[in-house]
């Protein structure tokens, strides 16, 4: 039996990525990184800023996301996110832009704890990419 399942990433504009030969996906779930293999129990969770790792026969891919929801059901993984970038396409200047935005957001004083936490996360993740 094969150990592969299907993953679909959608953003509001379009279906971002569909792959059906994926062996493992690591998502930055809100309560810590979560690795998903075939026949995982049905789960719904949401994401914090971080890196999605997709491991498949045709090669590994890494994506940077800022938020989103994951739903896993019947060996179908759906990831809904509003902001996603393929790390392979992301160059230094783009990264710096995002980092600057995130830092500005994190330095705001009038935001609540949760948005502050999320903004800090963004900064942290983006810094590790350098």
């Amino acid at each position, binding site marked *: 039996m094969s150990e592969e399942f299907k993953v679909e990433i*959608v*953003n*509001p*504009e*379009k*279906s971002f990525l569909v792959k059906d030969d994926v062996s493992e996906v690591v998502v930055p*779930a*809100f*309560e810590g990184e*979560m690795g998903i293999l075939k026949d995982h*129990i*049905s*789960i*719904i*969770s*949401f994401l914090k800023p971080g890196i999605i790792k997709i491991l498949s026969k045709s090669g590994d891919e890494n994506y940077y996301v800022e*938020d989103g*929801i994951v*739903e896993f*059901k019947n060996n179908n993984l*759906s990831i*809904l996110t*509003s902001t996603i970038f393929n790390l392979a396409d992301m160059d230094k200047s783009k990264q710096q832009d995002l980092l600057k935005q995130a830092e500005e957001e994190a330095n705001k004083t009038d935001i609540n704890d949760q948005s502050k936490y999320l903004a800090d996360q963004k900064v942290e993740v983006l810094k590790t990419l350098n």
Partner: protein
Amino acid sequence: MASLDDLKKRIASVKSTQKITKAMKMVAAAKLRRAQESAEKGRPYSEKMNNVILNLSNGISDKENAPKLLSGTGQEKTHLCVVMTSDRGLCGGFNSNIIKKAKSYFAKILDEGKELKIITVGSKGNDQLKRVYGDKIIENISFKESKNANYFDADKVGKMVIEKFEEGEFDVCTIFYNQFKNVITQIPQAQQIIPLNNEGEEISSEESYEFEPDEDEILSNLLPKNISTQIFKAMLENSASEQGSRMSAMDNATRNAGEMVDKLTIEYNRSRQAAITKELIEIISGAESL
């Protein structure tokens, strides 16, 4: 009867109008294809989102303490209506259809003695509504600068709506937009987004989910996003509808202009011949009298 010169000028002017409407039709057709594509591409996201929320709200155990965005405030006193129209005119009945739908809803609400608040998205809706409901309009947003509907703009509207909801400014929120069916048909829609109206929708599977963190926390994170998603969907449908409506309106205008040119050309030729005949008669009768 108009003189030959006048007729000539009118023909020229109708012809140049026809050129403009024809060009507008072409542009609308090209834009329509793009808008339709993005409306179709945007569907999976909102459908999936809806699905997840359905699953979640069915799984929620404590209905009493469910997030207010889902269950409502428990009253129905103040209604907020988000009326989404275009920023440009010359698109047939597109804007008037939404306004008509919205106005009949407004009248119903006011008849019931409830309070009404309006947010207009797009300047054309604001223009048409401010005469009658000017004092009810609390906010007017327009995205003239952005070429295509994008999620960022929708998110802005969504965040504003949620902020107002949390401040207790309204109990029920409805959005008005045109649903794109095909180039000739667009259906004005009124969709309630707060509280979320899931009645009549069957849950697809009986399967239970694992939630991490728990349902309440996911829901309270998801619901605000869903508002933006619904607004974004409405924006996409609207932009496809706008282009479709403009295309058929401009097509009609081009055809009408063509008919008018034909009519004017016949009239022009007739009066030209009449003038020639008249001159001939004058010459002949002049020669005869000699």
